[in-house]
């Protein structure tokens, strides 16, 4: 398999926090541009840790990660913001800025990227509409319900039309109906070309999303969900 169309590649990647044991080990996989991936596994398996490597909040202690064709160990710190602007992140714990309104939280990536304030307003209002929060635009996160906060977090992650969307349990706090709507949003984004990686426990969600690739993590290593293969399928809709 060549590197064309590969947006993320992990080679023998390992991660340990401090001096502890390896939380992730021997990760070898590639994500294809435009793919839709589900990352599953029991609590504590290392899903969030793997996503942190993906969204550049953590450097691997071992191995090599390439993102958008660039080996990260060769990327200068000054070049990281440029890469991060191509990644949308939905944190497991949302990480909304409490003293900013929902609107300003969602607008943040566009402001950081230096868009004009008029464009920002239009795009942000549209985005808030998408996640059903138009009437809560002025509210601060602490006054929002868990599900509303999650939708603000999702809106913030997708507003910049990222090349890679990384979502950690993005439907953990919403009802089934809202979960389906959010999945439609991710699906729509994916059809527009965004590579989507979603960590989730929600088997139902996975079942309802045809064409998605499943990556199963157990005790820090990737196992094949079907139990047969040593390596997970890396390409969607292709006979490897």
């Amino acid at each position, binding site marked *: 398999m060549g590197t064309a169309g590969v947006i993320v590649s992990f080679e023998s990647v390992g991660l340990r926090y401090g001096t502890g044991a390896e939380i992730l080990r021997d990760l070898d996989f590639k994500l294809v541009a435009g793919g839709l991936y589900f990352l599953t596994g029991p609590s504590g398996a290392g899903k969030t840790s793997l996503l942190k490597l993906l969204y550049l909040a953590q450097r691997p202690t071992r191995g090599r990660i390439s993102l958008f064709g660039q080996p990260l160990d060769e990327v200068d710190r000054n070049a990281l913001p440029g*890469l*991060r602007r191509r990644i949308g992140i939905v944190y497991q714990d949302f*990480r909304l*800025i409490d003293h900013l309104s929902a609107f300003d939280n969602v607008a943040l990536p566009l402001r950081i990227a230096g868009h004009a304030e008029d464009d920002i307003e239009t795009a942000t209002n549209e985005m808030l509409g998408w996640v059903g929060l138009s009437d809560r635009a002025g509210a601060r996160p602490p006054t929002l319900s868990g599900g509303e906060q999650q939708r603000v977090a999702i809106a913030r992650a997708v507003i910049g039309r990222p090349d890679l969307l990384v979502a950690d349990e993005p439907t953990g706090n919403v009802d089934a109906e809202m979960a389906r709507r959010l999945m439609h949003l991710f699906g729509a984004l994916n059809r527009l070309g965004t590579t989507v990686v979603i960590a989730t426990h929600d088997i139902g969600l996975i079942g309802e999303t045809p064409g998605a690739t499943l990556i199963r993590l157990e005790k820090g290593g990737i196992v094949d969900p079907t139990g047969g293969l040593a390596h997970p399928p890396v390409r969607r809709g292709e006979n490897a």
Partner: protein
Amino acid sequence: MRPQWALTAAERQLLPAGRRRGPTRGLIAIMMFVMVIVAAAGLAIGNAAALLSQATEARYSIQLPGGAGQGDALARAARDLDGVRSARAVPEEEVNETLDRWLGPAAREADLPVPALVEVEFDDNADAKAIETALRSEFADAMLVANRSTIQPLLRSLRALGWVAASLVILVGVAAGAAVVLAARAALAANRDTIDVMHGVGATDEQVVRLFQYRIALDSLVGGALGAGLAALVLLLVSASGLAIAGRMAGQALLFPVDLLMLALLPLGGALLATLVARRAVLVSLRALP
């Protein structure tokens, strides 16, 4: 256009207001107050030393041991020499009074040899050595004493005090710098979640540091102005009493306009320095983040 260092309304919201405003401004105000007072004292002392030194620049006295009664002759001889602008014999009564002051009234009874004293002022480029030699052809025991060398010890201690003041200003400045660094780090820690989110959506360190730099600049400007303002008030009160007397004694004010300008620049320079120091501290801390 908006100046580069100024923040947009959206940027200003990113760090919640008020959380750490109090202590930083107060601390900077106190330190600036001390710095301005000490700097003013140092400048006044330095100026006093300069005035004293200037006033005694061309002044000498001629002493003739045991020459009581020869004062006028000595003064006449001195006046005729090249390079002497004026010469005045100190009346014997004055000499005796001075001796009384130094030695007590008993000195008169002791029948000490009273010297003749002449106060002379030289021309600007006068050659003191030549004048002394010329004098000695007539009065072999005559001694020429520069007034400057008489007050030299006083000048030395004044100048030393000036240096002490300068060092104090620098020390307080360094302490203020350290306080600013600590405040910057504390602000960084207090806003760590916001910074992580900003980094997460692709903010550069420069974009983050701007927020803090603006804050510290504002705090140190306001704090510095407050401290310097208070110091100016105190200086005004003091100069209305003590300093003015000292100034009149020297025949001049002890702080010149250029000194006042320097004092006024202290809070501005301080704020600029504080901002640069804080900026540096924040950048260094940010580089340690992933």
